[in-house]
């Protein structure tokens, strides 16, 4: 079979994906991955109709991970959703949630509307279908790009390109800054290209496939430009990473993705690779601290194991325990939706319980929205692994 051939043919109807889909476990309204994905795909190819429960799929990719047959189930779902929305009107809610980048730029340009999560009343948001309980992210006062511009880096011959993504850029720039510090500690200079746009992941899950493709085209061109020069590109956000290397290939027909994907790295994995080559700065200071770890689904889906856990294991004194309790439920902006909030919390309940039971008060995870959800659901602090790496480097020099 062609590698990215999105057809339902290898599904054997084995039902494994049904047993592994967190949304299926949380609500009986969803007909489940097998049915909505490959099974109905055969029908979609021959008939025009809609499966209403398609909207419940969160694109978390647990189905793909469990499938013994390599069926791109979640992608079939996303393509079907895009087809459904091709000639239909969209809700304001979905538009807002999928255009985080536009919203962020808008709020930066329009003083007084500085923080839609805070200033726009939650009551109004609730009216358009955004849950008033969900952990909406706040905008940082300065975006990562702004902070980065003001940062003086030491120049090194070896350079890496950083793809920050919307969440780090607008909501959690400190992770980006920690990343730069860690790279610098490894004698690497970071390049950030302003032309990068949102990876498109929130657009895809809300069915704005054409717009996502536009974004993809722009990103592909830039990514390709840098990797052609031999620079690795690094992300700290697992959903961006998955989108840029895998989903672009599955959803669109854009030349060049397979080529640059070879040099597109998750930050943790990149550091581990340095370690394998004996090039990692291992001047780690001792951190006598205890953390829980949560593996984002979109990291697990990438087939690289849990590099964050392995990386943190290099830090002396650090005790990081994998919660190993499945999906947190947020799936990007899924859990922000009023009609999905309860499902999202139900999905995360196992994880929240595991965290609470552990008695540890801080959870480490690569994904920004996972961190939001965990903070909200388990009432704990959250960190990106690189923040700890940076802290450890700094501890060494103290």
């Amino acid at each position, binding site marked *: 079979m062609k590698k990215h051939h999105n057809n339902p043919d290898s599904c*054997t109807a084995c*039902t494994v994906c049904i*047993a592994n889909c967190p949304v299926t*476990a949380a609500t009986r309204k969803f007909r*489940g991955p097998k049915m909505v994905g490959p099974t109905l795909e055969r029908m979609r190819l021959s008939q025009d109709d809609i499966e209403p429960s398609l909207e419940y799929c969160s694109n978390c990719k647990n189905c793909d991970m469990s499938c*013994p047959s390599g069926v791109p189930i979640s992608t079939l779902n996303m393509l079907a959703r895009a087809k459904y929305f091709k000639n239909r009107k969209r809700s304001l809610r979905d538009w807002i949630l999928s255009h985080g980048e536009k919203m962020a730029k808008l709020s930066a340009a329009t003083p007084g509307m500085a923080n839609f999560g805070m200033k726009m009343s939650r009551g109004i948001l609730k009216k358009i279908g955004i849950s008033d309980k969900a952990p909406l992210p706040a905008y940082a006062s300065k975006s990562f790009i702004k902070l980065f511009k003001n940062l003086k880096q030491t120049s090194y011959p070896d350079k890496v390109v950083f793809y920050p993504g919307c969440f780090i850029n607008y909501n959690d720039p400190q992770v980006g800054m920690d990343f730069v510090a860690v790279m610098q500690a490894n004698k690497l200079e970071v390049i950030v290209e302003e032309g990068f746009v949102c990876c498109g992941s929130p657009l895809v899950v809300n069915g704005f496939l054409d717009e996502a493709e536009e974004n993809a085209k722009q990103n592909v061109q830039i990514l390709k430009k840098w990797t052609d020069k031999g620079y690795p590109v690094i992300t700290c956000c697992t959903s961006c990473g998955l989108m840029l290397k895998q989903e672009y290939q599955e959803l669109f027909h854009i030349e060049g993705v397979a080529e640059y994907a070879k040099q597109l790295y998750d930050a943790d994995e990149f550091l581990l690779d340095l370690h394998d080559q004996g090039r990692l700065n291992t001047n780690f200071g001792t951190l006598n601290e205890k953390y829980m770890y949560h593996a984002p689904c979109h990291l697990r889906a990438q*087939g690289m*194991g849990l590099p964050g856990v392995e990386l943190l294991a290099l830090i002396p004194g650090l005790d990081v325990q*994998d919660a190993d309790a499945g999906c947190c439920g947020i799936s990007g902006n899924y859990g922000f939706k009023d009609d999905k909030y309860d499902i999202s919390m139900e999905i995360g309940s196992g994880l929240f319980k595991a965290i609470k039971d552990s008695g540890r008060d801080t959870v480490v995870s690569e994904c920004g929205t996972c961190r939001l959800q965990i903070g909200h659901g388990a009432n704990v602090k959250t960190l990106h692994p690189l923040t700890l790496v940076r802290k450890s480097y700094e501890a060494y020099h103290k």
Partner: protein
Amino acid sequence: MREYDIVVIGGGLAGLMAAAAATKRGKKVTLLSLGSGTLTIGGGIVDVMGYLEGGIPAATPSAGLLQVGDGHPYKKIGRPAIEESIRFFKEICEQEGYSYIGNLDKTQWIPTAAGTLKPTCLVPKTMDTTELKKADKVTVLGFDALKDFYPSLIAKNFKKIPAFAQKEYEVVMVDPKLSEGRDVTALDVARWLDTEEGLASCIEKMRNVIDSGSVVIIPPVLGTRPDYAVKEKLEKALGCHFVETASVPPSITGLRLRTMLVRYLKKNGVRIVEQAIVAKSIVEDGKCVAVITEGVDRERTYHAKSFILANGGFYGGGLLAEPGKVIEPIFNLPVEAPTDHELWANYSLFSSEAQPFAKLGLDVDEKMRPLDADGKVLLNNVFVAGRNLRGYDFSFEKSGNGVAIASGYQAAMSV
């Protein structure tokens, strides 16, 4: 360079058992897995040997082991290792609070959802048939709207089995009120019983239809977690004995077993890499140096001292069938198969003969190392386990998980 003692390829029962045995020996293990294996489909019932060639039931699993032909994996593994592997498996289950019952010296005939009995060796306690055998009166309990369970089918067919014919059968139904939303599978009912409210409401409903002291045959729905909490609470509240049947996928018993084994491995420090599609190997001087996974982004190389190839058969992906030939995709090991495709399969799907295609697979020595057509060891540090082995038709003889456990264990012990 990160190097592990052992890389296990495949996270089915064979791979999980191999990893478990290897960690027990103090080895550092990486498990490369793709999908979640056949366990959640096939189930957590451990068959060892039910039928001999010709369809004759083996007197006991251990008697059956002695009667298999030369090409059979059990013959290679040998009885002592098989016994140890079963003991080891039961030990893990015990330790994890989800113990299995049975032994090699007794065939357990367990009820199936088709109203037949099937011979097996080890089962979870939810399938204990001790009370069922003694009972004069049996209740078969179904759930409204559950489309994968037909209690009257079981009651009717049990009447035709001489040893079960004397019993009286009563069919009763419980309504789990799940008919809203998607179609109902055993998994939905099991998840309902996982919750406190579900369990309480179920007990209420069952009280109306079953008498205290009854023996009750039910679909495999006694919770999705690898423990006996649901069973014990139900039995205590109602004073009954419940017996789960073997049934169609999704398999709840397999889900429980898999959850338990994966948890055990993680606790014991096994690194598990999901979505790792092993595509190639690097072999130097008859030894495998590394295997390479193929991601959508790039290849990743995993170095180790030894490798356990447990990536399943045709279903799992360890063997690829093409017209007139079988390919082992990672090491390109030879698989003997008739070039005339007509010879692969019997004309009758069901008969007293095993299906030739089901016996296709890799030939190994007693240490589970792959052999060429002349019986020469091809790779010194690669050990094969599970359904990719040749010489047995697990469906026909009822031996799937038994071979997976024994060969996984043997592979890890041979490293």
